[in-house]
């Protein structure tokens, strides 16, 4: 694998940071002031759901408990997403400093990084990095001389389950159970890991925190749009000249991103990974932001030569594989949608049945227990809608009439 050492440039995350500076500043602040700063910044979760970070922090800070936990969700499993890999390899100081600050703010003593099994090769380097932090008094007892503030971080290795990116499934797996999502409420902020108040934040969310602490929420809010403040890391792959991780401001148009990465003859863009939406050309002037084309950062580009039905087939195979099987809409629904795709591929379908499947897709969105089943039909619905001409009025249709 390539390990890039070239310096990345960006407005917020890649704007330059020296290890420990945010921790030092945070420790000189009141906990309430840190919470207010985060709230003012309007930082929202970067994993994809976009839940306000300050709400999670405030609820868990307010919860009374002898023990609290900070969990860094590094179970980046969404197809087309690899920004967390880059952050953990190149900018571990941002992620870990963010965890220490979160720990100080809510009164937690232990942080856990849930690292996906596929990133096992990061386990050792990250352990070594944590050791240097301990040596420099950025972890452990009385951090940077702050009497009574203890915080340490452990790394927990997952074992190859996409669903464990869902926070309650992640916690189940940490506790030694199958990674099956819990009913919510209660939410992890008051009943999380071991039944204790727990914050589960995405790697990128935590990596943004040190910048907000050092440079202030006013500076941070200048970036992005009113509802989506700051910047976002985009993992760009597919048909383009320069795939990779890009830091762009929220509000960037899809077409601008395509220009930037050298995408030509683009037919479709999948925004938000397999669980996101597939857009055709008429949508390319839409903005990447929570209020418009929302995404956890995955951008997959398809050029004119791609068969969108094959793309959809790939996505549905993925979800059939990764559904945990706990609830029926997701377990059976995804299989039925995949069968539907195969029927269309063979040309053995009726529109009446496809319409039923679309209804099924919508039912899955409301009836599934966790985010996986609630979002897995997005690709099915958006591809069939945005590319109906290609799918129903071309080769597939022809081949079955002949």
């Amino acid at each position, binding site marked *: *694998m*390539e390990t890039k050492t070239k310096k990345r440039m960006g407005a917020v995350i890649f704007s330059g940071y020296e290890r420990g500076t945010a921790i030092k500043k945070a420790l000189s602040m009141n906990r309430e002031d840190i919470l207010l700063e985060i709230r003012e910044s309007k930082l929202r979760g970067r994993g994809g759901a976009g839940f306000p970070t300050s709400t999670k922090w405030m609820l868990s800070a307010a919860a009374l408990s002898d023990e609290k936990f900070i969990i860094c969700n590094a179970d*980046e*499993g*969404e*197809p*087309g*997403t*690899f920004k*967390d*890999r880059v952050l953990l390899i190149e900018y571990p100081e941002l992620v870990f400093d963010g965890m220490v600050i979160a720990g100080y703010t809510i009164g937690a003593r232990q942080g856990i990084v849930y690292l*996906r*099994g*596929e*990133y*096992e*090769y990061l386990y050792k380097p990250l352990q070594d990095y944590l050791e240097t932090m301990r040596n420099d008094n950025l972890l452990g007892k009385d951090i940077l001389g702050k009497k009574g503030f203890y915080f340490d971080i452990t790394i*927990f*290795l*997952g*074992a*190859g*389950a*996409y669903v464990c990116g869902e926070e309650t499934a992640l916690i189940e*797996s*940490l*506790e*030694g*159970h*199958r*990674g*099956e999502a819990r009913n919510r409420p209660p939410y992890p902020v008051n009943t999380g890991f*071991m039944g204790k108040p727990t914050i589960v934040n995405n790697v990128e969310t935590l990596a943004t925190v040190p910048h907000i602490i050092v440079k202030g929420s006013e500076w941070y809010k200048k970036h992005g749009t009113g509802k989506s403040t700051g910047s976002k890391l985009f*993992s*760009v*792959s*597919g*048909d383009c000249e320069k*795939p*990779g*991780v890009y830091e762009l401001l929220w509000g960037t148009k899809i077409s601008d991103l395509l220009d930037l990465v050298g995408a030509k003859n683009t037919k479709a863009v*999948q925004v938000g990974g*397999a669980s996101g939406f597939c857009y055709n050309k008429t949508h390319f002037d839409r903005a990447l932001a929570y209020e418009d084309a929302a995404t956890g950062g995955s951008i*997959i580009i*398809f050029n004119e030569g*791609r068969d969108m039905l*094959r*793309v959809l087939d*790939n*996505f549905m*195979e*993925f979800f059939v*594989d*990764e559904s*945990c099987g706990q609830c029926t809409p997701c377990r059976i629904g995804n299989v039925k949608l995949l069968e539907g795709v195969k029927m269309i591929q063979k040309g053995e379908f009726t529109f009446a049945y496809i319409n039923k499947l679309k209804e099924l897709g919508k039912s899955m969105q409301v009836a599934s227990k966790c985010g996986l089943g609630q979002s897995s039909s997005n690709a099915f619905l958006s591809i069939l809608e945005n590319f109906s001409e290609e799918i129903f009025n071309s080769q597939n249709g022809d081949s079955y009439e002949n």
Partner: protein
Amino acid sequence: MLVEEKNAMTEEIEQLVKKFGKKRSALLSILHGIQLKHRHISEYAQQEIARLLDIHPVEVYSVLSFFAFLNATTKDRNLVRICQTISCDMKNKENIVRAVERELNIKIGQTTSDNKFTVEYINCLGLCDEGPAMAINDQVFTKLTPEKAVKLLGKVK
């Protein structure tokens, strides 16, 4: 299993329990430890883990069967996993799969007759910008060509 093997396994699990703690939350870490060394978690190992953590063996099996990276039956010395998800698919992962299948004379999902390789698909490895990607045991390789992939297999013992 020979008695000595059983004793060695028990001792190993005891060590892991000591390291990660005698609690349910240590289960996945213990399973990882056994999987890493033995490439599978035998029925005996499952029973011993259950006994030492004071849970029912079926609980151990239920967790182990949930995760893609843990298995109860022996796979062989080297596990080759080729990413099948969209970005790698678009970068012609099929060609890599076919080359590996031809070279090892097996189909994907199978194990070679000398028990040297098992080849499987894996879902998104998170290397979408550098596809097609493949993992051999715990090492990952990117920007593969069929030739490069086969060469990598040759380097594995």
